[in-house]
Every structure is written in structure tokens, then in C-alpha cells.
């Protein structure tokens, strides 16, 4: 396995056109599982394809173990890729598909057979070696695609949304299997997904991208607890974080037009100084940190009518229709996760409060995170 470094990777598909990727710098350690996540069109697949060599970067370099391989052909980079649609050769058997790369590299037949069978055993494919991809289920095909990647013992694995074509149940199973395999092989892996659940559960570190720009690179827990900006805050976590409009005036926090009593924190800029007296900001509160209180309760920062209650067994998600001016959301909906026993009836007017020490703050204009320091 190897470390991979990306330096200043920029990609423009047309001269003078918009940047699909903008100055991406990333260091991936040997054996690390890094997930690239973001909405459709954010550039994550483009970045993966540049690492694979299937696309060339407009600017920037890529290094493997310190060696610049930007101009090296894809087949010579010793990197294996698992494609979103598996890209299995339909006219070849499972055995021939898995051994395709070994055959190209003129591995002796005996060795090739042995390695293919070992890999098939690792993936539970021994009894399918004579079948063709058309005779396999989605999960089996996915395993064959992984087998083809694993058998060559490459320095790194690239996976482009390999679970997106599977049903929900199989996706959960294969997620665990991929994680197990990666730990067993101790392989350097770059994994692309638009599913933040996959990102959070599988990655050692997660790279969040939006519009070709890296928003944040951090461990999953760090992303969840300390998002760098409002985009990351909303993208990571399900249901997504609520963003309420607020302001910081004379050391007092106002949310939705109401002063938040007993808010015992000060807000700081990145350089550590106090943000100043007056500032519009966004207050981010995860649904599980929202409390439901009676509408007339003084602790309620916003009030609204319950539009929908979704019972999920162990919890209930309450969708609250609030004044659109109070929330930074087109729908004007705020979501709270509560115990099913405490879920209010649809149509009732309720208020919400929140855990002060769990709130996140973002600059309204830039979306950047504003740090908080507890007072006393």
C-alpha cells in the first residue's frame, strides 16, 4: 500500500470554463480509508478519475509515495478501481473477470488461477467462478468487481459509489463488508459517495466537497461535532441540521427575534477575538438537540405548528412549520427528534428550545463557522 498526495489539483473541462475542481490539496496516508462526499456535481467523481488517470488535471500534481505520477498511464499506476456500475465484462466468466488484469500482465496461468481462487474465497465467490455476470445478483456482481480490484494487490483502491445500485438492505451489508475487507487488507482506499451515512460509517477521514471546492477534511466525528461551515453542517447528519436566523448584539444572542436567556457563551472569530457587538448569524441546532416546549413558554425561541410527525420506532421526527424569516430554509420547516412518547399531535402549536452548548454558529454571509467559548 502507499500514500497519495494531491497538490493544487484543478480541473476545467473547457478552456476558460468553470472549474469542476478548484485547487484541491489532500494527503492520504498509507492504509487510510478516505471518503469523498458531496452532492451531485461537486467534483468528487472527477477527483477520483484524476487519481485513476482516466481524467487529466488542468493544473496540479499527484504523487504516490512521493513520486509524481501525474503523467503516468492509468494501467501503469498500480491502482485498482471499482466502478459504480461494476463494469464487469459480460462475455467473460467470473474467473476470467477477476483474473483479467493478471492475464494482461502475463501472470503464469497456474499463479493466476491460484490468486483468483484465493480472492474468490475471500469474497465468497468460489461457487460462482464459472458463471457470467448476467447470471449474478447485484451484490455478487459488486463482489466480482471488488475481486478484480483486490487480486492485483494494487497500491491503492478507488471506489466510485459502488453501493449506489444496491437495495437498502444489501447496501448496509456490503458497507460492513467493504470496511472489513479494507481493514483486513490494510489498503489505502479512496471512496466516493453522495450518501453521508456511508461517509460517516466507513471513512477514517471524510473530505466534503461542494462545487469543486474542499469544504472540510476531518474525521467523521469532527465533521459532525465541529462542522467548518454551514454547508458541511447541513450536509452531514440526518435529519439535517436546523439553521435559524439570529444575531449577536451586546453580548446577547437573539434567535428568531427573541432573546435567548441564560446563553452563557461568547462568540469568537477564527483569530480568537470577540466577534464584536452586532452580527447577523445562523444558529445551527441538530434535531436531537432541539427541545419541545409549550408555545407560551418563555424558553421557546421560535414557535410553530406541527406539520408532520414521523414515527421511526425508537424516535419520532417532528416537522414544525415556523415563520420563514426565522429559519434559513426555503421550506420554513424545522425538525426535532424526540422520544416517541413525547411526540406532539399534528396541528398543535408548540415552541422549541435548544441545548445552548450544542448550538453551532455560522456567519450569514460566508457560512463559516464561528467558535464559541463558554462563559464562567
Amino acid at each position, binding site marked *: 500500500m502507499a500514500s497519495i498526495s494531491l497538490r493544487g489539483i484543478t480541473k476545467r473541462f473547457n478552456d476558460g470554463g468553470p472549474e469542476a475542481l478548484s485547487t484541491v490539496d489532500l494527503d492520504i496516508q498509507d492504509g487510510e480509508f478516505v471518503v469523498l462526499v458531496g452532492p451531485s456535481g461537486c467534483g468528487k467523481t472527477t477527483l477520483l478519475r484524476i487519481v*485513476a488517470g*482516466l481524467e487529466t488535471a488542468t493544473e496540479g500534481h499527484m504523487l504516490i509515495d512521493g513520486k509524481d505520477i501525474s503523467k503516468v498511464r*492509468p*494501467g*501503469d499506476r498500480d*491502482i*485498482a*478501481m471499482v*466502478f*459504480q*456500475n461494476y*463494469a*464487469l*465484462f*459480460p*462475455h467473460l466468466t467470473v474467473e476470467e473477470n477477476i483474473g*483479467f*488484469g493478471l492475464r*494482461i*500482465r502475463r501472470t503464469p496461468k497456474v499463479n493466476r488461477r491460484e490468486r483468483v481462487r484465493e480472492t474468490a474465497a475471500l469474497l465468497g465467490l468460489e461457487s460462482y467462478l464459472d458463471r457470467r455476470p448476467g447470471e449474478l445478483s447485484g451484490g455478487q456482481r459488486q463482489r466480482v468487481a471488488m475481486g*478484480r480490484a483486490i487480486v*492485483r494487490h494494487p497500491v491503492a483502491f478507488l471506489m466510485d459509489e459502488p453501493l449506489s445500485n444496491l437495495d437498502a438492505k444489501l447496501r448496509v451489508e456490503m458497507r460492513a463488508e467493504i470496511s472489513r475487507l479494507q481493514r483486513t487488507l490494510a489498503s489505502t482506499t479512496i471512496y466516493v459517495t453522495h450518501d453521508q451515512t456511508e461517509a460517516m460509517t466507513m471513512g477514517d477521514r471524510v473530505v466534503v466537497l461542494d462545487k469543486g471546492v474542499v469544504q472540510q477534511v476531518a474525521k467523521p466525528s469532527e465533521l459532525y461535532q465541529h462542522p467548518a461551515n454551514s454547508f458541511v453542517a447541513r450536509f452531514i447528519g440526518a435529519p439535517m441540521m436546523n439553521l435559524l436566523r439570529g444575531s449577536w448584539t451586546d453580548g446577547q444572542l437573539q434567535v428568531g427575534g427573541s432573546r435567548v436567556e441564560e446563553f452563557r457563551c461568547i462568540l469568537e472569530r477564527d483569530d480568537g477575538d470577540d466577534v464584536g457587538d452586532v452580527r447577523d448569524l445562523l444558529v445551527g441546532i441538530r434535531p436531537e438537540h432541539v427541545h419541545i416546549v409549550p408555545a407560551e413558554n418563555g424558553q421557546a425561541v421560535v414557535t410553530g405548528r406541527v406539520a408532520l410527525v414521523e414515527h421511526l420506532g425508537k424516535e419520532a421526527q417532528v416537522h414544525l412549520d415556523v415563520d420563514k424569516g426565522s429559519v434559513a430554509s426555503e421550506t420554513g420547516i424545522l425538525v426535532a427528534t424526540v422520544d416517541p412518547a413525547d411526540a406532539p399531535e399534528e396541528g398543535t402549536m408548540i415552541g422549541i428550545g435548544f441545548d445552548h452548548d450544542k448550538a453551532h454558529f455560522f456567519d450569514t454571509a460566508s457560512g463559516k463557522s464561528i467558535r464559541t467559548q463558554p462563559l464562567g
Partner: protein
Amino acid sequence: MDLTNDRTSINFALRLRRLLIRASGSIFVWSWVIFSFAILGWIIVAAFKRNDTVFADLWALPDSAEVGNFGDAWGLLNLTRTSINSLLTVGGGTLLTMALAAPAAYALSRVGFRGASGLTGFFALGIGIPVHSIIIPLFLGLSEAGLSNSLLGLTITYVGVSIPFAVFLMTGFFRSLPTELEEAATMEGAGPVRIFFSVMLPLARPGMVATSIIVAVGLWNEFLLALTLTFDEDKRTIGVGLLNTFGAMRYTSNWVGLFAAVVIMLAPLIVLYTWMSRRIIEGLTVGATK
């Protein structure tokens, strides 16, 4: 209430319109099918009749099957010689055409070099050139090359006139194949030639089969080039042989012999189409819905 009635009558009018369009299309197609089968059926039945009764009652079945007509036709067509010539020129022409068209089509559709789209257009233009407009220069050119009145010259000409269509059809087919397969092969270390032979060509088999059949059928039925570019009896193809049969028939009035000759000429095509119709349709339509 009024709105509901209006909606119902609009839906009915739309459904009726769709039904009429579909019905008129079906009527046209089935009319053509019935007409074609009627003509074919009539010729086949007539080939088993006698000359003195064939036109007496056009639609009557023969009293007894005159299989001797086919023996006559075999002789009239000089079938042994002409069928060998046709097999050599059509078979050789088809194989060579596919050997050249397939890699050309792959390069044009997938390799993406500068001028590829212009070159594709150039090939497509070739389909529109009627062979009648080039027959004289072709004849002169082959004469200069010492290839006139030869099966080799005819085969080379067949390749030349078939390549535009074959490239056009195969280009569309290659375009329909997923690009990830090539990318996967590239990641596994395969170069362009290996990718073409190990991945793309096997996947292009339905298209290759369909294109080969269409090219072969066209060449089998081809007449003008064979008539013009060959003039010795032992160089004649089956289509030209049929012309000779027709010429002879004017003196002998051997209509049933002529019909038998037509049936002999059509038989391989009918067998081929019947056996391979699914592959032909598959090859022609595989890219249509992607």
C-alpha cells in the same frame, strides 16, 4: 360536472386519434407483408408447375410437383460455377469489409482523435453515392490494375462499396456500448488494441452479425457491378446467371425454369433471414433505446 364531461370527451378523442394512427400503421405494414408473401408464395408454387399450365390459372396449385424444373434451372443458371463465384465474392467481400469496418468504426466512435467526426461524415457520404455514377471510373481503374474480369477485382469493389454502410452501422453500435468497460480494461493495464480485441469486439458481436448479414445479402443480390466488371462465363455470379436464364427463357419460354431459378437464388437468403432475424433486429436496435 361539465368539466368532467369535457375531460372525458377529450380523453376519448385522444385515445381514438392514437388508435387510428396505430391502426393505419398496422394496416400499411400488414398489407406490405401480405403482398410480399403473396408474390413469394406465388413464385414458389409456380416453380413446381408446368409451362403449359402456369398461366392458365394463376392461383391454382400444381397437379403434381414438377421438381425437374429445379434441375433445369440448375443447368440454366450454371449454378455450380455461379454459386461458387457468388460465395467467393460475397463471402470474401463480407469478411474483408467487416475486418476493415469494425476497427475503423471503433476508432471513429471511441478513440476521439482530431478529425474523427469529419471522417465519420466522409464515410456516411459514401453511402449516398450511387454505384451507377462510379461504374465507368471503376471499370477503367480495375482495367488499369489488371483486375477487370476477375473475381478478385469484383471482391475488392464489393469491399469498397460496402465499407461506408458497414462503418456507419458499426459506429452507431460501438457508441452504444458503455464506456466504463473500456475504462475498466484500461485500469487493468490493457492498451487500445487489447481493449478492442478482448473487450469491444466480443461485445460488438450482435452488431457485427447484423452488419455482416445485411452486407452479405446486399452483395448476394448485387447485379450491376458483377455484370459490368466480369464478362467471361466462368466469372459470372448467381445474379448475372439469372439474367442469362431470363434471356434464354425468351427463346425457350421456360417460365417455370425461370421461377425455379429465382427460388434457388432466394432460398439461401430466406434461410439466413429466418435463422438470424432475431440477431439482425438485435444488432440494428441495440443502441436505439440507450
